């Protein structure tokens, strides 16, 4: 199994198909982006230059990119877990929101605890909330075949409104600003800052640990094998004695748990409170979705894609500050990437055919 896998990895057709398609997707997307920049009356070279400078132009900017990549990469890996098991989880946003809120609440009441207890407790609360919000639609899909795709999408809106209600009324920090938000979490439940002068926090280790843990689960455990089989061929998996319904629920639980963790890290490391509309407004979960799609649901590659997309976001903010091009240019570029990725299988076959003919 391992040997054949490495042999397949060395296959030039596979490498070209796997690398060329995302590269082509990005190239086309940036071309479209250039057209959009011209439409906004700016110079594409100048705008893209500002974008690169904004993303990696200084140590502070690199740190900002890494900080933004934490929730994106963790949520992306979470969504990839579900995709690999054949569960199309589009509810990452809702799972992340409720995870973040649960972390803000638990961290808020853990003032007297030592940090080694308070932080894991707060993060676990976020994971549990995210997992619960994902298991609900998974259970409905398994029990009565409600399409997971749509119900997870709809549950995002419910989660946004539920969190908004909670943070506007019962959980609101009454001393706070005009925006509804919870009280600041105590210092002992906050993730420490790693480099002074930046906002890079301890949560960045999740970007390394989460994909490795998922890879280990998928490649080295029976559960991981069963999850992958359920995604690759549910009939075969069921024939082989795998309880595919239970696998769907497990995969969604893991996926939602990781999305919840993404929200939890955002609260415990960066915002130190839950701010209404900050997660859906920030587009973290959907960027994570694009990362998972770009990486074909490979956990390690999802992280790299997530860091790259975070760099684009942070760079776009710099570009918007220094040129007349609006920040949302990057949303247009990302949508174009997904269009190309939608035809990924066709493209890969096309490339493989071309190579075979040679």
């Amino acid at each position, binding site marked *: 199994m391992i040997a054949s896998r490495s042999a397949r990895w060395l296959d030039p057709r596979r490498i070209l198909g796997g690398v060329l398609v995302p590269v082509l997707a990005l190239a086309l997307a940036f071309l479209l982006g250039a057209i959009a920049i011209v439409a906004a009356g700016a110079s594409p070279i100048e705008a893209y230059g500002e974008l690169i400078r904004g993303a990696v132009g200084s140590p502070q900017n690199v740190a900002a990119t890494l900080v933004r990549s934490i929730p994106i990469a963790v949520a992306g890996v979470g969504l990839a877990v579900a995709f690999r098991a054949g569960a199309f989880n589009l509810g990452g946003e809702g799972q992340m929101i409720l995870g973040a809120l649960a972390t803000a609440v638990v961290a808020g009441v853990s003032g007297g605890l030592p940090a080694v207890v308070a932080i894991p407790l707060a993060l676990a609360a976020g994971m549990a909330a995210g997992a619960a919000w994902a298991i609900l639609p998974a259970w409905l899909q398994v029990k009565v075949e409600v399409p997971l*795709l749509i119900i997870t999408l*709809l549950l995002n809106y419910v989660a946004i409104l539920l969190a908004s209600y909670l943070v506007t009324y019962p959980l609101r920090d009454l001393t706070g600003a005009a925006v509804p938000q919870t009280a600041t979490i105590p210092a002992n439940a906050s993730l420490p800052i790693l480099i002074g002068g930046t906002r890079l926090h301890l949560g960045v280790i999740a970007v390394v640990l989460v994909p490795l843990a998922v890879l280990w689960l998928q490649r080295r455990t029976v559960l991981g094998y069963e999850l992958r089989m359920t995604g690759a061929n549910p009939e075969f998996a069921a024939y082989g004695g795998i309880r595919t319904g239970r696998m*769907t629920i497990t995969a969604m639980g893991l996926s939602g748990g990781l999305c919840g963790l993404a929200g939890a890290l955002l609260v415990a490391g960066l915002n130190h409170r839950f701010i209404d509309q900050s997660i859906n407004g920030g587009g973290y979960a959907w960027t994570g979705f694009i990362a998972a799609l770009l990486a074909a649901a490979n956990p390690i590659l999802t992280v790299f894609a997530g860091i790259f997309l975070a760099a684009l976001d942070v760079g776009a903010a710099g570009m918007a500050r220094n040129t007349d091009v609006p920040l949302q240019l990057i949303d247009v570029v990302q949508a174009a990437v997904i269009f190309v990725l939608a035809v990924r299988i066709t493209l890969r076959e096309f490339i493989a055919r071309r190579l075979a003919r040679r």
Partner: protein
Amino acid sequence: MDALVGVLDVALVASTIRLFTPILLAGLGGLVTARVGIFNIALEGLMLFGAFFAVVGTAWTGQPLVGLVFAVVAAVLVSLIFAVVVVDLGGDAIVAGLAVNMLALGATTYLMLPLFGVEGSFYDPTLQRLPQVTIPVVGAMPIVGSLLSGYSILVYVAFALVVVLQVLLFRHPLGIRIRAVGEQPLAAASVGVSVRGLRYLAIVVCGIMCGLAGAELSISLVTQFVIGMTAGRGFIALVAVMFGRAHPLGVLAASLIFGFMYALTLRLQGAGSAPQFVAMLPYLVTIAVLVAVAIRQRRAQANRARTAIDDQAGIGPPAVVGSAGVPPP
């Protein structure tokens, strides 16, 4: 007091009819693509494009009917990209549909600053609404008048389209071909039906409907554009297609339920309940409807297995409507 309750309830029905029209229009679009075997999750994004360009056209020319044309053209152009990706390049319809939705949200937000010079939402008091139709004699009657008359022109168009589609799909050769493409594309192709052509046609028709739906939202129900103002109505329309089993009359009935929920939401918000909980109502009811649809399908399957009677022609929607756990590429 009784008279007041009576007036209020008439108002609720009228409000339902106003609010259900965008969902009905988008749902009819989704129905047409479902009938050619394409699960169209892009309704949401197409509607948002429609809503945005309706305001653009109206603001530029001062003519809401020009805005309507803008909305339809924009939604059709984006539909054509979707069609190329899905029909010609064999792309995954769900991923491409999500791309349309993200493109819509990104592009409309992006274009707000250069086109309107504002961010977040655009409102201009001089913006004209779509013409409201007053039916001559009926409009003057006391209760019937306010129930049947005084709506935006698109409300009447939507009702007319239900009838047109019902006749077209089940009484006209073109409709039979469209259904054949959805149910048995190979068989349809073997008797000379252009599968590609009809899929393109369906996607373009869907684009037109979604453009109209968006225009109804932004230059009729209100006269402004707000970022993401469709707020999941496209997904709700998709559920209406499922609940209505891809039948025009069924989609009409399903949309009425959702429209009523939106009307109730407005009414309750006026009554001072927590706005977030009230705003949740349409989504929660949609989820409940989804569960009901799923249970009904299960029962139907069980019944079919028991009685071993073939599916009646035109009852079941194409298989794509139930496609849930579609793995990404």
